[in-house]
Structure formats: C-alpha cells, structure tokens
C-alpha cells in the first residue's frame, strides 16, 4: 500500500500503476474483504461510465429514515446526470470529464478546532469505518430528484475520531481544486471562487442521517459522483452534499459556502429542502423524480426537509426558516 505515498499529480493512476501491482493489491484487499480499493486501478474510461467499479461490502442500515421503499433511480442515470461544476456546467460534463481527476493518492485533512488534527488516506476511508448502505432521496435545488442507495458511514464517526473541541460550532468542507484536472475550473466565464466550499452546523454534522459517502449501488463512487469521499445530507439541497472532499475543518463561526457567496439571496447557508421557500427564479413546491419523460414528467410534490422532517425538524426549532433558508 506504499503507492499512496508517491505523488504523481495529474497522471491517472491507471497509467502509473503496473498491472501486477494492481492485481496484487486487488487480491490483498479482496482477501480482507475490501474490494473497494481496486477502484484505484480502474481505467479512465471505466471511471466515467463503468459498470465494473469495485464492489463494496456494506450492511443495510436499519436506522430511522435510513431507507425508503420508493423506486430507485437507475444506476446509469445516477452516474450520468450530475452537477459537478469543476468539470463543466452541463449535466453530462462530469461523466465525460471527471476521469481526468486523479483520486489516488488521496488524503483528507481534518483540522481546526479538534484535539487530534490529522489526515485520512484513501485506504482509511474504506477500511477504517463500518460501511452501511442507506437509501436516500436526493433533491437538487434545480427541482429534480433521485433515490439512491449510498454506501458510507456517519460523519459523526469520523469527527469523533479527531475529537472536536468544545469551541467547535461548525464544520467547513472543501473540494479538491486542481485546474489541470478539472476543466470547469479553467472556464473564463465561471464566477465561482474555487475551491468549492460547503459547511454544516456541528449538530447537523453529527446527526445520524449525515453520511460520509464512499459508494453508491454497492460500488465505489465513480469520479463524477464525488470520488473518493463525499458528503450526503439527505434533508438539504444537493449542492450541500459536497463532493471529492480534501479538507474538513472544525470552526467556531459559520463558514462561507460557495453558492451562498455567489448568490446569497438565492442560496442560504442552511438550504434545507423547503417547498414553502422558492428559489427566486423557480418554485420549489414540485420536483421531477428522475427518470422523467416529456409525456409523463413524474412531477411530485416536494416535502419539507425532503421527507426527513420527523428526524431533523427538531434541529431547527424556534428558527424562522424563511429567514434561515
């Protein structure tokens, strides 16, 4: 597993990992029941569309709100219709270009107001935590939604390992920012201030539904879905569920987040799914549950907190959600 210490910026791992090394590694991991790491050996084209991504072993979660019997959005749709503006603003751009991002080696810096700051490596993410499968509704602020079986572990489990200090009130996240590997960040007309940033209040971060995600559909996350580590906060609009995380920082003040910086009147820090508060440019009362079609748009009503009110509404007791949108 020493490969992780060798840094080859902007060269796909498949180009630098000799096949025998990769095979050995794969056997090693399968021996330990951890096929996931084989993902580091996948070819770029496979990364974009592959049905052959490594399988992840995960137990089905049985917590409150952790599953739904609504029909799942097909895997092929979930990995081909994405917003990941680092690779372009079209929905098909991430699936087309995210393979240019090198996810091995990968490390996540955890710091700020914690007693034990440190780094997590790609391997730690998959071997160091008990993986569960959670089937969540995913509601984009653009009024479309999916139902996706994610694989991951509670963010709380990760944060506890680094021991947040008593001053910590918020968690700030950052996405990888590599211009050479992310063509969307090279756009002259983009007005996003990279890297992409997101944040949660500490109690939101510690909520059992908040998931650090490493896979979907029992497979390792493909790059366009935020490999190798992303957040999923099912009761918030999708852009809160930051992808390809490289930094997690505990802070005492509400951190600035990318969309809020860009258009504060349209995107609030909380961004809880709320049919009563419109995006100024479109209504949030309905959503298109994908796959949708022209003649049966599959337009359904949006629920407060994306249907997770029972689990999370108490976090916002006494707050005016029209002000704190």
């Amino acid at each position, binding site marked *: 597993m020493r490969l992780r210490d060798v840094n080859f910026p902007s060269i796909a791992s498949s180009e630098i990992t000799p096949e025998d090394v990769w095979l050995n590694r794969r056997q090693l991991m399968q021996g330990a029941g951890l096929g996931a790491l084989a993902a580091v050996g996948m070819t770029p084209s496979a990364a974009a569309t592959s049905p052959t991504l490594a399988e992840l072993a995960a137990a089905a979660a049985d917590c409150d709100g952790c599953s739904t019997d609504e029909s799942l959005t097909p895997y092929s749709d979930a990995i081909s219709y994405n917003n990941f503006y680092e690779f372009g603003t079209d929905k098909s751009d991430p699936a087309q270009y995210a393979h240019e991002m090198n996810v091995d080696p990968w490390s996540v810096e955890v710091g700020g107001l914690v007693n034990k700051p440190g780094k997590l490596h790609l391997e730690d993410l998959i071997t160091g935590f008990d993986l569960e499968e959670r089937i969540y509704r995913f509601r984009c602020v653009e009024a479309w939604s999916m139902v996706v079986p994610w694989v991951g572990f509670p963010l709380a489990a990760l944060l506890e390992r680094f021991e947040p200090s008593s001053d910590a009130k918020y968690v700030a996240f950052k996405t990888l920012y590599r211009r050479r590997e992310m063509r969307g960040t090279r756009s002259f007309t983009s007005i*996003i201030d990279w890297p992409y940033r997101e944040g949660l209040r500490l109690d939101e971060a510690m909520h059992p539904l908040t998931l650090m995600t490493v896979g979907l559909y029992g497979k390792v996350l493909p790059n366009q879905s935020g490999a190798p580590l992303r957040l999923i906060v099912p009761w918030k609009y999708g852009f809160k569920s930051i992808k390809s995380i490289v930094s997690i920082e505990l802070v005492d003040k509400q951190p600035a987040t990318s969309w809020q910086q860009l258009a504060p009147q349209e995107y609030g820090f909380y961004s809880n799914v709320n049919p009563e508060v419109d995006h100024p440019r479109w*209504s949030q009362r309905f959503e298109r549950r994908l796959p949708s079609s022209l003649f049966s*748009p599959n337009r359904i009503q949006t629920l407060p907190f994306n249907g997770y009110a029972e689990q999370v509404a108490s976090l916002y007791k006494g707050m005016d959600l029209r002000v704190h949108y």
Partner: protein
Amino acid sequence: MTTHSLPPFLSYRIVWWLLFGFGIGPFLWLAWAVIQNALGPDPAEVLMHTTGEWAIRFLVVVLLARPLSQWGWPVLFRARRLFGLFVAFYASLHLLVFAQVYVGWSGAILAEELAERPYVVVGFVAWVLLLPLSITSLHSLRRRMGRHWRSLHRSVYLIALLVTLHVLWLSRSDIGDALLYAVVFGVLLGWRFVVFWRKSLRAKQSS
C-alpha cells in the same frame, strides 16, 4: 435582391429546401430523441435548453441576413422569412415544453411564474412579440401593409434585447452564453445603428 450570385446549378428552390432542412433538422432530431427516450433521465431540461438555443441561433441568422446580403450573399436575405418563422417555431416549442413540464398546464402556477419570475415575463413578452411578425410574414399581408410592415418588423431588435436579458437572468455560475449572445446581438444592433445614422447624415447633406 436577386439570387444572381448563386452558382448556375443551384436554383433558389433547391437552396430554399436546403435551408429548410437545416432549420427543421434540430426539431426532427429532438422528436426522434423523445420517441427513442434518448435524452437522458431529465429530458425536460434538455428540451428547454435546446429549443431555446435554436430559437436564439435562428434569430442571429435573421439579423445576419441584411449585413450578409450587403457583403455579397443575398440568398440569406431572401430566406429571412423562413428563418424568422423558425425563430417563432422553436420559441413556441420552448413555451410548450415549459407549459408541459414546469407549469403542468396549471393556470395558477403560470400566474405565479409570471408574477414572480422576471425572466419568464421577459421570455414570454419576446414570444408574444414574435406573433405579429409571424402572421405578417404572409406575402399578401406584407404587400397590403406597405411601409408599416417595415416599422413593425423592426421590433425584432427589441426581441433580441429581451432574449439577451432572458438568458442573462437565467445564468447561475457561468455567464458565458449570456455574454456571447449579448456581444453578437450588440454587434448586429450596433451595425444597424451605424447604417441608419450614416443614411440620415447623407440625407441631411443632400437636402
């Protein structure tokens, strides 16, 4: 405005059919893709974008017709009506998709959209302004209207302005498209203005 610049083997009829094919092409492709379910999991978004974009592209072609004809390519000038009708055609499809997928044919939701979203209003006004232009594109009406026809059809510049505003208002994190249209329409409008200004200057000098 004759077609004498065409090569001898091309009659205007053939050219017209070629241009017609070019104009109807995007629609045929979209219709095929809808039937084949080939537009991905969220066809609403693709259809909204594609129909809107083609309406704008053909509007650019319409506005290009006059300058191009003066630079020795008069065929496009004659086909101006064809492309003008394609602008109205794609703009109408754009509106139909909006009604079907975003409004769900609900009067209440349409009223809310018009009341609360300025870009919807601007787009809708642009579409309404296209209607009289489409109707008066009939040759018989045009003849009957005489010089009024020209002044009515000048509203195409207002439509271009509204469309640019529509796209600008819709931009989220990348203003590339909006800037492109603003520049293209800006240049075309500016050119018209310069021509008009020169003409009136000349008229003054000769009087």
